[in-house]
């Protein structure tokens, strides 16, 4: 994308740049009215976008088919509207029904969907020995297999981690620490990449680097 030339776009770019600095005034300086202003602007704008986008979605999914003759669509429309009874204390229990539909569908889909990838495939991959692999491949295979068993034992919370369980659960905890360390390392990449994007934007608006 090239540096914009239209006046409104250039103005918008600089507005965005100043808004970014207003937000960063909080960590780089201290909490101040500029930061609060930008924060509240964002919440207001986001709320409106949420409302309109969901409105157009409901129109598309429910209202339009209803107007075109799909009478059954009145059911989710009424159920959806019933969720607003949550705002009325004496009728709050009515909102449990639309929640029950969402929760039921979510749990049903979650239960049926999680078995194969998170249990079956994970366990099969763990117990499948390397075919014709070298020493490192076998070491890795044993590492994953032993690590998995010990880490799962760590989550046996109904048994005291003492006696014969003490060693494996302690080992399991170390495996989990290793995994969390790796997760932290990847999290750092994620957070710093987002910051890098902002640093790049800072320089691009000032035309110090090409857009």
């Amino acid at each position, binding site marked *: *994308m090239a540096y914009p030339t239209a006046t409104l776009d250039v103005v918008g770019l600089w507005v965005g740049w100043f808004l970014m600095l207003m937000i*960063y005034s909080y*960590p*780089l*300086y201290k909490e101040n009215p500029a930061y609060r202003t930008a924060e509240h602007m964002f919440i207001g704008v*986001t709320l409106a*976008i*949420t409302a309109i*986008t*969901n409105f157009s*979605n409901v129109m*598309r*999914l429910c209202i*339009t*088919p209803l107007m075109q003759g799909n009478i059954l669509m009145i059911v989710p429309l009424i159920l959806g509207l019933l969720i607003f009874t949550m705002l009325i204390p004496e009728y709050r229990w009515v909102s449990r029904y639309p929640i029950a539909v*969402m929760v039921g*569908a*979510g749990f049903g*889909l*979650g239960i*049926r*969907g*999680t*078995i*194969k*990838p*998170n249990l079956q*495939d*994970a366990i*099969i*991959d763990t117990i499948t020995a390397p075919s014709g692999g070298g020493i490192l491949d076998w070491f890795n295979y044993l590492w994953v297999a032993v690590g998995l068993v010990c880490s799962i034992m760590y989550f046996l919370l109904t048994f005291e981690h003492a006696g014969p369980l003490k060693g494996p659960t302690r080992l399991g905890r170390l495996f989990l620490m290793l*995994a969390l360390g*790796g*997760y932290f390392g*990847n*999290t*750092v*990449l*994620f957070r*710093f*990449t*987002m*910051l*890098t*994007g902002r*640093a*790049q934007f*800072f*320089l691009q608006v000032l035309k*110090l*680097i090409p857009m």
Partner: protein
Amino acid sequence: MSLSKLANIDRRVFYWILFIALMVPFLSPIGFPITIAPNTQDLYDGITGDQVNEGDVWIMNFGYGVSAWSECHPAVTVCTKALFREGAKIIFIGIHYDVELTYNKLQDTCSEDFADKVYGEDYVFLGYMTGGESVVAQLGSDIASVFPQDHFGTPYGDIPMLEGVEDHTDIAGVLSSDTGDYGTHFMTQWQAAYGTKMAEIGIAMNGSTDLPRWQAGNFFGVSVGSRGGAELEALIGELGEATTAMDSISVSHLLLILAIILGNIGVLTEKLGGKK
């Protein structure tokens, strides 16, 4: 400066150091070489060559918003280019309110590839969806029920490339670029249920959970954050935003490791002092 004084430095000093350090590599690029990881190679191999037939319909899920553009967008750009060059057709969908902005940005970053493609025949933007696992499951059984129209209001049935595209059986593969759970939903409701070919182009944070799934065969490839994006740019031979950002990433990571080491010097000296 004693260690105790070091420990009491105002945290804002660190923030300024980081903020400035992130910008320097953009002004004076270094250009460290990047090694391609096997998960990224598998992803690229899965969307190129004989793995993709002309006319195959793929779904590209924009599961990221503007805040994660620098993380996910470079990889999505490369995957879009690769699929278009193989003659595949792409359905773009998204789960964030700013999905239209992401779609517009993709048109900008892949402008040359979009130039010889026709909307409605080679690609379509169906727009925003939400509903968690339910909407992803429903998408698999009836796409038109989730998107009766595309983002611009054209009825599903009036879009030429969607003729005959009804459910998961008509989709060759799914590429999901995620900051959250939707990649997992596609995995449980599409890949696990129907065996649909699927890859994850996620944020780095998801890399730890996605790499074991790639190893288990749930994903045919995984791109891990901006590093994955840089690797994909190297594979397609068109360096872009992710490669540019890698120098800045290198500097910031080194600074963080330095901060960890400095912070732990105190612990180390305490332990050694205690032993004495």
